[in-house]
């Protein structure tokens, strides 16, 4: 049975929504895909009934600050400051180094936390939400 370790993952991004490229110095990523539940319980039922509703995703990417410029890593950490964001940026979150097992979606970066702490490497944490279809190739 094959298991994977966290360092086998990676993150790709393209602000233009075309061809995603690797984001440098990514330390971690996480994503939660949620489905709303719609209560369809009828009067007189003993047990509650639910059906699935809208699906959405949200998560975070944590990366180390490297002063990169003029590349997708720089666009990624500054993308929260984009005006009129139509949510067309392409995200690809990979679980394996071969680059085939991924969660792919368009999304919006909703926050970026830039931190500098004495004695520690500077870290940027970007949060995102999905826009439209989420493809799970995992």
């Amino acid at each position, binding site marked *: 049975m094959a298991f994977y370790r*966290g*360092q*086998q*993952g*990676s*993150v790709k991004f393209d602000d233009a929504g075309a061809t995603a490229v*690797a984001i*440098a*110095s*990514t*330390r*971690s*990523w996480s994503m939660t895909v949620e489905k709303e539940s719609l209560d369809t319980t009828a009067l007189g039922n003993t047990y509650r009934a639910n059906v699935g509703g809208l699906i959405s995703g949200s998560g975070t990417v944590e*990366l*180390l600050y490297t002063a990169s410029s003029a590349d997708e890593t720089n666009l990624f950490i500054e993308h929260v400051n984009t005006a009129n964001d139509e949510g067309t940026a392409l995200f690809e979150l990979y679980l394996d*180094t071969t680059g085939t097992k991924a969660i792919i979606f368009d999304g919006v970066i909703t926050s970026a936390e830039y931190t500098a702490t004495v*004695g520690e*490497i500077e870290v940027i944490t970007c949060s995102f939400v999905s826009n439209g279809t989420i493809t799970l190739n995992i």
Partner: protein
Amino acid sequence: MAAANLNTIRATIEGRLATELALSPAIPVVFHNQPYVPTPNSTWVQCLVSFGANNYLTLGGTTGSSNSIIGVIAINIFTPKGAGPGANLTIGKRIRDLYNRVVVSGVHFDPPIGPEVVAAPAPEGFFQTQVRLTFETFEDL
């Protein structure tokens, strides 16, 4: 990018000390695995660099990823016995100032510990203190 050259890192650390202690007043300095027989009642310094923990810094495999390399430097300062601590601490300050929060060639030096008096000097016959500090450097694969 390539795997870190530990010998280059060692040379960076040791070279900094060797250059400083070559200045007036010059003080003999010895490093790991070097023969040295100290003259009785003399002043000299021993610098020992060791590499320790390596940690994952970023996601990725053997390319496009980064590691953290942490090490420790122990610097023993020997001065004549029975002459008080002043001369020893003066050298200690020179050494402490040399590394304190300094970043050289990608090597980040942390604030030093000491100079701490060593109760049982080795070799005997000297007044010994020790300055210790950790350092961190980053490996880009």
